[in-house]
């Protein structure tokens, strides 16, 4: 497309070119009247770097095929469920980063703060007098939330770069982790065990196969109904709505994704004579969080202000948005989301240890968010993207491990994918600012 017509002085702009440039950046949902036109607009947006989910899904499919060719175990039910587990960490931590990345900030501490929170949770659950598990979980979310909130406060109050503040926060959290672990499990050798069945079941427990189908069908039906109601309302209000075919296609895609997840979960992954079937609860946890956070970002004032601050903080300030409050709140939510990741992590491992790779995990989280289309410069990105990006990171991680290649290529391949994602992000931004 001709990017030069978007500038502030497009004197020679022909009307046609002008429309072309508008289309290139607009949401296809509101510009297209037909499926064909929709596809055309969508393509021009892909070239602009604002591509949505499909390129990520295609890339994911390519990686999956590669690993399956190299190792037939890759697509086995047991490995796929394991993969879902690993993906859940990256997704959750990626979603945590989305809150701050949208502001143009970053939080490098959450890899360790989540472990600090989880340590508190397990400490509270220690026999012989365990606290009620909801309370323990609440503490496990509150600790990283407060930690990140304080970092947000320092970032806004002293106007320090969040990169440096949260890098210091990362070290501080690691120190805290050692300190807290020492008090919680003095004889544990740097680790504390999980003694609660409810939390253990986040991973180990599954929905029954029938329940899995019911939940999936209900979720898809609900989402589909919401889409259709929204479109109908818009049409009733005489506003443009996406063509019915596009909406149906989206619902179909959701249904396919749901069916795939349930099919994988319901396949017997037991070893030997034991039968293990059903979708692990963790899938539901991720689903609930992604829906809740997407609602928060997309449908509330708070979410709108996060995007506004990421796009143009000065404009938001002049419009009366309380920048400090929104920023601190976003950091706090990032911390709380990291807390959820910490709980999931302990459920997977059955313990927390001081050896948790918090620095590495947080980079994977940023990678997940950026691969999923969240800009490092703020203002662009979605929670769903972090889920897809988390899946990509997990597939690479899992697949290379399955090939027995060891840690070295794992790091290098993840680095390559992350670099590619950041390059796409930066080029897209340069293109739109140079325009």
């Amino acid at each position, binding site marked *: 497309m001709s990017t030069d017509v978007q500038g502030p002085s497009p004197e020679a702009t022909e009307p046609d070119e002008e429309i072309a440039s508008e289309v290139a*950046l607009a949401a296809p949902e509101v510009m297209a009247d037909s499926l064909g036109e929709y596809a055309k607009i969508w393509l021009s947006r892909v070239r602009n770097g604002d591509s949505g989910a499909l390129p990520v899904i295609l890339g994911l499919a390519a990686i999956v095929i590669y690993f399956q060719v190299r190792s037939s175990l890759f697509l086995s039910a047991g490995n796929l469920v394991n993969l879902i587990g690993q993906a859940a960490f990256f997704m959750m931590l990626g979603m945590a980063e989305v809150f701050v990345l949208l502001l143009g900030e970053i939080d490098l501490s959450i890899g360790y703060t989540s472990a600090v929170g989880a340590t508190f949770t397990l400490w509270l659950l220690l026999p012989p007098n365990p606290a009620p598990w909801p309370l323990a979980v609440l503490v496990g979310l509150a600790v990283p939330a407060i930690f990140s909130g304080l970092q947000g406060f320092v970032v806004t109050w002293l106007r320090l770069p969040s990169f440096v503040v949260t890098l210091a926060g990362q070290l501080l959290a690691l120190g805290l982790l050692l300190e807290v672990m020492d008090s919680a499990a003095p004889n544990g050798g740097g680790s504390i065990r999980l003694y609660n069945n409810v939390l253990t079941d986040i991973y180990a427990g599954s929905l029954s196969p029938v329940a899995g189908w019911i939940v999936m069908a209900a979720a898809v039906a609900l989402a589909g109904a919401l889409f259709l109601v929204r479109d109908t309302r818009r049409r009733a209000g005489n506003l443009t709505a996406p063509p019915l075919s596009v909406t149906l296609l989206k619902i179909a895609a959701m249904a396919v994704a749901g069916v795939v997840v349930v099919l994988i979960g319901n396949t017997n992954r037991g070893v030997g004579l034991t039968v293990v079937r059903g979708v692990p609860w963790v899938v539901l946890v991720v689903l609930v969080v992604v829906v809740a956070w997407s609602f928060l970002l997309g449908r509330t004032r708070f979410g709108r202000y996060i*995007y506004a601050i990421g796009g143009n903080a000065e*404009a*938001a300030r002049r419009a009366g948005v309380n920048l400090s409050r929104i920023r601190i709140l976003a950091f706090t939510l990032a911390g709380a989301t990291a807390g959820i990741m910490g709980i999931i992590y302990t459920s997977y491992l059955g313990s927390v240890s001081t050896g948790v790779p918090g620095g590495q995990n947080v980079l994977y989280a940023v990678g997940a968010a950026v691969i999923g289309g969240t800009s490092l410069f703020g*203002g662009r990105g979605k929670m769903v993207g972090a889920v897809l990006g988390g899946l990509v990171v997990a597939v690479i991680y899992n697949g290379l491990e399955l090939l027995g290649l060891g840690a070295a290529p794992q790091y290098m391949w993840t680095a390559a994918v992350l670099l590619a994602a950041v390059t796409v992000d930066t080029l897209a931004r340069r293109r739109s600012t140079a325009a």
Partner: protein
Amino acid sequence: MTTPSAEGARPANAGRASSPDPHVTDATDGTDAMDTPDHTQDPTPPQAGDGADGPPLLHLVNIGKSFGPVRVLSHITLDIPIGQVTAVVGDNGAGKSTLIKTISGIYHQDHGQIIWQGQEVHLHTPKDAADLGIATVYQDLALCDNLDIVANMFLGREETKHFQLDEIGMEKAARQTLADLSVVTVRSVRQPVGSLSGGQRQAVAVARAVMREAKLVILDEPTAALGVTQTRVVLDLIKRLKSQNIAVIVISHNLNDVQSVADRIAVLRLGRLVAVGPASQYDAESIVDLMTTGTSKRLAATSAEPSAGSSSEH
């Protein structure tokens, strides 16, 4: 010290004598501002002289502003009538920006009064001004490129329904406002502002001001960054504002634009109002004269503006 009446009279018939003006950097001027109210009981209707109908929406009386020892504005007395475009012109450093920042609540004047719809008001923050219905569109427009037109127009004032953003209601209102302003070139109000042309962006910024029920819209160099076509779009927009009975102040360097759109022209020079009157009284040459020397031979004969300062009401 001169009285305000003498100040006001100078632009038309005594400007030459006053240049270079000792008042501009005179820090003791404050004393004379203190007693000006006592001298300004004469409520001569200022609009009688410059063709406005009805009382002015905004009436500035003897506004003065200094930054340290530098006198940036002195004795600015100016009416802004409803439904008219008042162009404020002047060379760099003439005080145009300070003047609009005072009106929009960013600066508070050191002395003088701001009379809004007959009542004296004190504008200490931009919000004070916005609450009255004074909307300022700065040159940088303050738009979020990543948000669509609707989100930008409602930024900070989003409507909610059941704890959710009322997207449909906001979109309808945004479309209506743009339609009222005859902004027809945007393809969809759901496109990001970053995809718009310069004129369209200006239109969105103005529409946002109008939607907030602005009674006075101040445009700071609205056409400075625009090409010919886009400039025409913005000038048409200003005319639409006027027809909606909104008072408009346009700050501009571009005298062509000023002449094509302004009903009244106020010329600032070195912090003083050297002329104000119906646009028809001035041609480009006389405006340039006034901007650069504070007087114009071409106008000496008509002595057009008897009311710039003498008309202050209290």
